[in-house]
């Protein structure tokens, strides 16, 4: 076992977080099977006689405003929330990593240009732009994720840029250059592998950030639209349910909280394991 893996294995908190993520991913991916097979409910069937039922053996976490099973819906919505979070992270990594890497590696004019773009995007009030875009475009799930990711890659680019900057000065990069390696080769073979582990950490934070961003927008009713449900959109109507059906408020929010908490803890632990010197 390498040093990193051993340190990770010994870090109980991080292992618990990893376990939790595996469970969350498993139950959301198997949501349909669990709903029909295990819970024996149809998460899509409306039953107006069964509205706002509190938790009972038949509906473990109660029913919603249309009489649908809350637990089954939370699991199914989790699939949407997790996929959106993942897509947002992929988009912001796909933009942020190459931009950060190139501007850290080349510096100079390119660095100035990307800095100017980053400064500009950071100064734009993202939430308002998102509200504006959802009002005009009425985007679907995928477009929504791409928009959120496209507006949120700046942090990733900055971190990668900083790492690229420091790696550029290392001796092994100098050695590779002395042996006649091209820029592309140095970046692909020497810089990228060395930032890769940190990129996985950043990816974790991006996924969690993506889940939080989507949930906020959907909570406002401007994100995921029915009949698709995400954890955020399940909470959109919960204001009317604060007194009538508090379980509808608790479940999706708790799911968001536990998921992002587990991802944050795992990413934190991973960072400490990769570079013990950074540990607080």
């Amino acid at each position, binding site marked *: 076992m390498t040093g990193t893996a051993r340190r990770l294995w010994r870090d109980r908190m991080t292992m618990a977080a990893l376990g939790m993520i595996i469970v969350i991913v498993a139950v959301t991916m198997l949501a349909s099977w669990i709903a029909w097979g295990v819970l024996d409910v149809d998460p899509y069937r409306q039953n107006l006689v069964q509205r706002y039922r509190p938790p009972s053996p038949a509906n473990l976490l109660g029913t919603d405003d249309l009489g649908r099973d809350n637990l089954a819906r939370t699991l199914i919505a989790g699939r949407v929330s997790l996929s959106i979070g993942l897509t947002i992270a992929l988009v912001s990594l796909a933009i942020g990593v190459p931009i950060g890497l190139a501007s850290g590696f080349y510096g100079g004019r390119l660095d100035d240009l990307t800095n100017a773009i980053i*400064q*500009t995007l950071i*100064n*734009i*009030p993202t*939430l*308002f*732009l998102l*509200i*504006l*875009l*959802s*009002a*005009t*475009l009425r985007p679907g799930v995928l477009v929504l994720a791409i928009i959120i990711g496209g507006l949120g890659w700046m942090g990733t680019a900055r971190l990668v840029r900083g790492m690229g900057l420091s790696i550029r000065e290392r001796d092994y990069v100098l050695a590779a250059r002395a042996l006649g390696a091209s820029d592309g080769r140095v970046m692909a073979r020497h810089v990228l592998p060395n930032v890769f582990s940190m990129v996985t950490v950043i990816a974790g934070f991006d996924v*969690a950030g993506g889940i*939080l961003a989507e*949930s*906020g927008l959907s*909570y*406002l*009713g*401007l994100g995921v639209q029915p009949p698709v449900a995400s954890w955020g959109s399940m*909470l959109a109507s*919960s*204001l009317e349910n*604060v*007194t009538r059906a*508090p379980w509808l*408020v*608790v479940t999706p*929010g708790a799911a*968001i*909280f536990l998921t*992002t*908490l587990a991802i*944050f*803890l795992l990413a*934190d632990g991973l960072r400490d394991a990769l570079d013990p010197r950074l540990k*607080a």
Partner: protein
Amino acid sequence: MTSGLARYIARRSLHSALLVLLITVLSFSIMRLAPGGPAQFLDDPRIGPEHRELLLESFGLKDPLPVQYAKWLWNVVRLDFGYSFIDRRPVIEKIAERVPATFQLSLTSFALGLLGIPLGVYAATRRGRWQDQTIRLFTVFGNAVPHWWLGLMLLVLSASTIRIFPLGGMYTVGDGSLPDRLWHLALPALVGALGGWIGFSRFVRSEMLEVLGQDYIRSARAKGLSARLVLFRHALRNALIPLITILGSSLAGLLSGGVLFETTFSWPGLGRMSVDAAYQRDFPVLMALTVIFSFLIILGNLIADVSYGLADPRVRYE
């Protein structure tokens, strides 16, 4: 003021002005080019073709886009954002009505959030001990939980037990006295302050640890100054300077992030207004809010950057 600083301020101001202009172009383009656009209400079959022409004319929708933009921008500069599509009232009038509510909530949250500063100082002085660990745990949890959901949970708690706090709104209809208003403000302001507690405490903690490791702190201790004096006179003062850079953006974040809190607590502010405008596709209102908020945020960041330059002579302007 050195010429370097003056140049920096000039360049930074120019950048901000260009940014504001860019955002006006951006929001204008999104509105006009999006499917549906502002003329969508004309799809109503009850509107005859002759009226359609007349309406397009009266809304200025027949001009070429750059002309429309220039006209709109000229009006915006004079704070004329046109009329709401929904109730035909001047947009600026509708916005002005909501400004006090938003400022009241965001400024109170901001002020309460500043308590994160002493929290961070305390954590730094107790580094590694249980007090520091507890504060760290609080920030980790606080970062993972959507604060608006925490607000919802507090509402659930308040609704299902004794009603310690009201279930939203700014005041009880028919009351509106100061204690009543404060009672309504308490919960949203506390939830809004969470971001400050987390952000400021983490920032100040790491700045304090950084400063406490400096040579001049060791010198101050070596010459026998009391720990208190070193902490407050030597360390804290220097640790707080970089805080200036995040104060502006955090206030800006509260202003725009207020959308979520205003929705949760039925607070009749600008954030709630923007969401309603988005539902109703009330474009003039939506554009006005986007432009105004962008302007405030950019101005806030500009002021923060410039004051940082003034406060810390070590900042270099390359």
